[in-house]
């Protein structure tokens, strides 16, 4: 008796599929009205939709920060290479100065940009948790065909109400899915 009661309240993840961003945005609104918080909703799509389009919270990406850190590392590496090398291993040739600024700019620029680029790439992987390390994550392959999949976590007790509301806004399919959001 207790187990059945608990089962009705145990949250599960479901997916609703939409063809267009408008009904998907309405679905998010409906889910919110029912009491499902934004953090319990995940949208997957085949094209990047701005959060404003789908009525989702606007968040800034941390990738630029990775880029800045990478650029800094690249900059310091170039300084170390360009100025550290002749300081540690001086080769005095024909009265040429050991440290010269104009050629330094080339190395500093290239390594700074390299750091920026590589770190931005790694930033995408780290922030998006790609590739997944453990566990199965929710996914619907119709996303590749242009569908907008709205995943939401809700207890079974709410399912009938949610289904009805989502069908009214145009969900083509609502089904439970295995896996986690991240």
């Amino acid at each position, binding site marked *: 008796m207790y187990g059945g009661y608990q089962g009705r309240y145990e949250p599960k993840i479901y997916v609703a599929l939409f*063809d*267009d961003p*408008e009904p998907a945005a309405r679905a998010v609104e409906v889910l919110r009205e029912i009491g499902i918080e934004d953090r319990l909703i*995940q*949208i*997957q*799509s*085949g*094209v*990047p*939709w*701005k*959060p404003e*389009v*789908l009525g*989702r919270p606007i*968040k800034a*990406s*941390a*990738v*630029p920060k990775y*880029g800045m850190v990478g650029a800094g590392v690249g900059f310091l590496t170039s300084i170390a*290479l*360009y100025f550290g*090398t002749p300081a540690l*291993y001086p*080769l005095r040739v024909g009265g*040429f100065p050991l440290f*010269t600024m104009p*050629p*330094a700019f*080339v*190395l500093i*620029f*290239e*390594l700074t*940009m*390299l750091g*920026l*680029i*590589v770190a*931005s*790439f790694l*930033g*995408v*992987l780290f*922030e*998006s948790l*790609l*590739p*997944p390390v453990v566990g199965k*994550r*929710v*996914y619907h*392959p119709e*996303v*590749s*065909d*242009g569908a907008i999949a709205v995943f939401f976590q809700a207890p079974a007790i709410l399912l009938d109400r949610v289904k009805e509301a989502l069908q009214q806004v145009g969900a083509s399919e609502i089904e439970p899915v295995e896996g986690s959001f991240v």
Partner: protein
Amino acid sequence: MHSETPLPAELHGQVEELRKEHLLIDVRPREEMNRMVLEAMEDTSREWKWAMAFLGLVTVVTLFGAWAYLMSTGMGLAGIRRPIFWGLFIVSFVFWIGISHAGTFVSAILRVFKAEFRRPFTRAAELMTTFALMGAGLYPLIHLGRTWRFYWMVPYPNQRWLWPNFRSPLVWDFFAINTYLIGSTLYLYLPLIPDLAMARDKSTGWRKKLYTILSLGWRGTEEEWRHLTKAIQIFAWAIIPVMFSVHTIVSWDFAVAMKLGWHSTIFGPYFITGAILSGIAAVGSVLYLVRTTMKNMTYFIRPEHFDTLGKLLLIISMGWTYFFFNEFILEWYGGEHTVKEIIRFYTQGDIAPVWWLMVICNIFIPWAVLWNRNWRRKPWVMFLMGLIVNVGMYAERYVIVTGALSRNRIPFDWGWYQPSLVEISIAFGTFTLFLFMYGMASRLIPLIPVWEVEEGHHAHSLRKVGKTVVPSVADLE
């Protein structure tokens, strides 16, 4: 999927015309576009296999075979002799670096400016960048002669305390080319991930395994898209100055030398303009090959795209002419004795046919053809224009590298360069290597960025203005 305001029935004729003309108005379901792209990728017909086998064999013989022969015998096999110590290897190196500007210019600059026509062919151009850089990267190794000593270029402490000379442009080349190669490869890969995920979902067998690894578990979540699009923006902005730096540094290989004919302050922008010219020209030729040899590509790559590339080519050709004229007229006006001899050698000497070939291919022919919209819209015309301009650009590099070295201040040290068979074979081999790698890649990765095309479909609609309909673009990026 694509919602559009209903238009009056009497305008349907115009609507059909516009759809025929513009890819981004001619909406097809994503599923169908996926199928078309995958079908093109998986079409490994007998002809394709034969073509790849032939190109692979020719590359092995003409490039790697000749290179092995050169290494085992010595650099004496090359035609370089005093005073001309830079020959076809350096010419080809500069040429392929130039071609590599295709992807960055077409993809990054047009992406920054949100030029919508770029959408279907950014990847085809980015792929050219990566493969052209790989080809270019071989030449410093070949030119070394003793290739196995290449690691001397790499900055690391060694037992003799010898480090690369950071003041040498050749070391700047090492850093610039590696930065550009890594940057452009990552820039190719990032926007490819969603399409690889699509291929993963639709493929079977070994392809499914391959795309599962390469797509890194991409699902298209809001988080993933947010980080990916931000990174693409950063990359597009970052790769442009890197692109400029690469060819500027290549030009400095020449310009920093106290060599008449090379020591010029405008060599940087002159080389960059030339590189963009050859890059865009090459995109035109490659798009023609993609369109004619791959299934379903006539839907994605249309006359409108060749038309726009033609306009770009004409503008860049004018830019190149401006720098060429500047360089030429000021050197001539200076009246320095040796420079006058170099100019005479270029225009009337033994190398004059190559110099005039450059002028004809880079100025006369493009200007005579590309002003005409009807010609620009013909894919085969743009294919030929691409070849002609690149013949002109190869000739330009040949004149700059070998021509200038042929004449010095002291006539005692004048010379004449004739490329040897080994050099010609290696130079030819990189062309077949490029075609081979491109042909293989065209069957392994989705050459059309389907998600970007779909995004373009969502952004474009038809709007009635007065008595006609016009395409209208919404800013969804």
